[in-house]
C-alpha cells in the first residue's frame, strides 16, 4: 500500500512533467489504435460483404484478384463454355458482369458502375438489397442506383447519368441502403459498359450453384476445364483478403512504432530524471533495510503506471478518433472503415504496458545499483 502511494505521489509531486509524459503515451497509443482499427474495420466489412453475396462462385481471369476492377479481360467464349458446362456441374445461374469505375480525387466524384445482362437485377447478386423507388432491374437505357450513392450525389428518379460522351442512362430505380459496398454501386445494362469501354469482354462471371457446400469442388472442376480462369469461392476470397489485411496490419503497426518509440523514450526520460532526484531517498530506504530489488520494482512500477494509464487514455482517444473516422466514411462511402475490437483494445494495452516496462528497466537498474554509502552521502 505504501508502495503504490509512493509511486502515485511521486508522479503527482511533479504534475506537469508527469502529465506531459502521459500525453506522449496517450497520443502514441491512440495513433496506434486508430491505425490498427482500419485493419479490423476492413475485416468486419469484408465478412459482412461476403455474407451478403448471393452467388457462391466468382470466375475471374487468371491472376486477377477479387475486388480489383481492372479492364474486363474475360472473353465471351468463357461465358459460353460456362453455360455449356452448367448442367453437368450443377450451376443454376450464370451472370456475366462488367465493372467500370470512374475515379475522382475525392470519394464524392468517383462512381462504380456494374453492368448486368438483360433481366438480371442487383438482387440476384446481393439478396438483401431492396428497392426504394422505381424499379429494381435496370432495363434498356436505365440505371438502378445504390442507396448510399443516391443520397450522396442526389441521384433521384429521372436523373441522367453520363458514362461517356456517347453513353447516357436515366435513373429508373433507387435501392434501399443495406449496409455494404453494394449501396455504393450504380447498376446498369452490360451493353452500356461495353459501349463505354469498347469491348465485349467481362470483368467476372458470377455463378450460383445447386449445392453451396460443393463450391470448392465446382471451382476446381471449372479451373480444370476452362483454361485461363480462376474460380473463387467466398472462402478463397476471404482467405486472400485476410492475407492482404494482415500485411497491411504490419505496415500500419510499423508506422505507429515510431510514435510508440517516442512515447517510450519520454517515459524513460521522465523516470530517469525522477531517479536522479531521489537518489538520497533510495539510499535511505536501502539503509533502513530495503533490498535492491525493492528499489528496482518501485521505479519499474512508476514506468508501468505511466504506461498503463497512458495506454487506457490512449485507447479512449483512439476510440473517439475511430468514431470520427467512421462518421465520415459511413456518410461518404457507406462503410465503417475503422473498428476498435476487443482484441485490438487488449493489444493496445499490452503494447503500452510493454512500453512502460522497457522504458522503466534502465532507470530501475540505475536506481537499484547505486551503493548505499554513495546514495546516503548525496545532498
Amino acid at each position, binding site marked *: 500500500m505504501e508502495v503504490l502511494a509512493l509511486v502515485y505521489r511521486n508522479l503527482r509531486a511533479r504534475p506537469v512533467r508527469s502529465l506531459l509524459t502521459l500525453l506522449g503515451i496517450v497520443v502514441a497509443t491512440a495513433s496506434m489504435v486508430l491505425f490498427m482499427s482500419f485493419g479490423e474495420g476492413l475485416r468486419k466489412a469484408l465478412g459482412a460483404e461476403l455474407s451478403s453475396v448471393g452467388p457462391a462462385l466468382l470466375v475471374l481471369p487468371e491472376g486477377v484478384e477479387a475486388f480489383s476492377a481492372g479492364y474486363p479481360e474475360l472473353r465471351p467464349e468463357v461465358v459460353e463454355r460456362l453455360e455449356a458446362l452448367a448442367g453437368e456441374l450443377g450451376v443454376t445461374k450464370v451472370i456475366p458482369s462488367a465493372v467500370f469505375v470512374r475515379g475522382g480525387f475525392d470519394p464524392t466524384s468517383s462512381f462504380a458502375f456494374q453492368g448486368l445482362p438483360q433481366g438480371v437485377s442487383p438482387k440476384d447478386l446481393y439478396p438483401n438489397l431492396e428497392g426504394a423507388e422505381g424499379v429494381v432491374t435496370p432495363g434498356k437505357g436505365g440505371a438502378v442506383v445504390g442507396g448510399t450513392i443516391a443520397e450522396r450525389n442526389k441521384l433521384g428518379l429521372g436523373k441522367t447519368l453520363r458514362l461517356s460522351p456517347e453513353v447516357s442512362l436515366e435513373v429508373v430505380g433507387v435501392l434501399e441502403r443495406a449496409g455494404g459496398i453494394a449501396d455504393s454501386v450504380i447498376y446498369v445494362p452490360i451493353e452500356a459498359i461495353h459501349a463505354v469501354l469498347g469491348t465485349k469482354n467481362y470483368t467476372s462471371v458470377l455463378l450460383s450453384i445447386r449445392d453451396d457446400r460443393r463450391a470448392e469442388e465446382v471451382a476446381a472442376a471449372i479451373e480444370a476445364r476452362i483454361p485461363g480462369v480462376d474460380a473463387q469461392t467466398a472462402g478463397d476470397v476471404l482467405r486472400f483478403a485476410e492475407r492482404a489485411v494482415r500485411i497491411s496490419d504490419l505496415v500500419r503497426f510499423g508506422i505507429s512504432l515510431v510514435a510508440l518509440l517516442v512515447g517510450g523514450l519520454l517515459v524513460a526520460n521522465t523516470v530517469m530524471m525522477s531517479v536522479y532526484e531521489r537518489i538520497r531517498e533510495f539510499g535511505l530506504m536501502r539503509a533502513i533495510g530495503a*533490498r535492491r530489488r525493492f528499489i528496482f520494482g518501485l521505479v519499474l512500477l512508476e514506468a508501468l503506471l505511466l504506461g498503463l494509464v497512458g495506454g487506457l487514455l490512449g485507447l479512449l482517444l483512439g476510440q473517439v478518433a475511430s468514431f470520427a473516422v467512421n462518421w465520415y466514411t459511413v456518410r461518404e462511402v457507406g462503410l465503417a472503415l475503422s473498428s476498435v475490437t476487443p482484441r485490438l483494445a487488449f493489444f493496445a494495452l499490452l503494447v503500452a504496458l510493454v512500453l512502460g516496462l522497457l522504458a522503466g528497466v534502465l532507470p530501475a537498474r540505475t536506481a537499484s545499483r547505486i551503493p548505499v554509502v554513495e546514495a546516503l552521502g548525496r545532498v
Partner: protein
Amino acid sequence: MLEAIHLTKRFHQGEIDVVAVDRFSHRFQPGITAVVGPSGSGKTTLLNLLAGFDTPTEGEVRVQDGEKAVVLSKLDEGRRAELRLRLMGFVFQQWNLIPTLTALENVAFPMMLAGHRLKERQERAAALLAQVGLEKRVKHLPNRLSGGEQQRVAIARSLALDPPILFADEPTGNLDSASGERVMELITSQARKGRTVILVTHDLELARRADCVLRLRDGRLVDG
C-alpha cells in the same frame, strides 16, 4: 551483540591512501556508546561499516542474530539489508524521512518491508508516534514537520521492528537545544530498555551521558 574486530577501511584518493578507520576493535554493550572525535576522524566511515552500508578493507563486523553470531561484513548486499531491517534502527542527522510518505507511513515503512499486515502496521506506527509525542502529526508529510518532529518520527521508525541495535549519527546536529534535549531523552530511554545505542557525535556534552565513550583520531581508537 555487535562487535568490530581489527576493522580497517582504506580509500584510494588518487596517489594517496587514506586510512579512514584503522584497526578498530570493540565489543558494543547495551546502553549508549558514544563515538566522538574531530571532523575527519572516521566516525561516519566507522558507522557505515558497523551498519553494513559499506564493506571493510580488512577485519570484520559480527552481529548476534538470535541464537547465532554472523559475520556481517562477509554477507552479500541482500542479506545485509535483511539483517539491518530486523536488527538495526537508524536516526541520521537529516534527510531521515521519505518525503512523499506521511509520518505514519514512514514509521510503518520497515514493517511493510518485513511483510507485516497493513492493519498491524498502522496500529503499531500510530502507537509509536504517540510514544514520541506526535499523535497529532500522524497524517503530516515530512515537509510539514519541524526538524525536531522529523527526528522524533525517525526515532519512532527506528523502533518499528523492535531492533536490538540503534544507530544515531548526529541526531541532534540540526536542532535547537530544546528539541535536541527531547530527542536525546527518547534515545536515552531506549538505551535504558537494553538496546545497544551507537551515538556518533562531536558534541562532548552529549557524550557525557553515554555509558561508554570511544574517542577516534585519524581512524584509530584512543584512550582516555
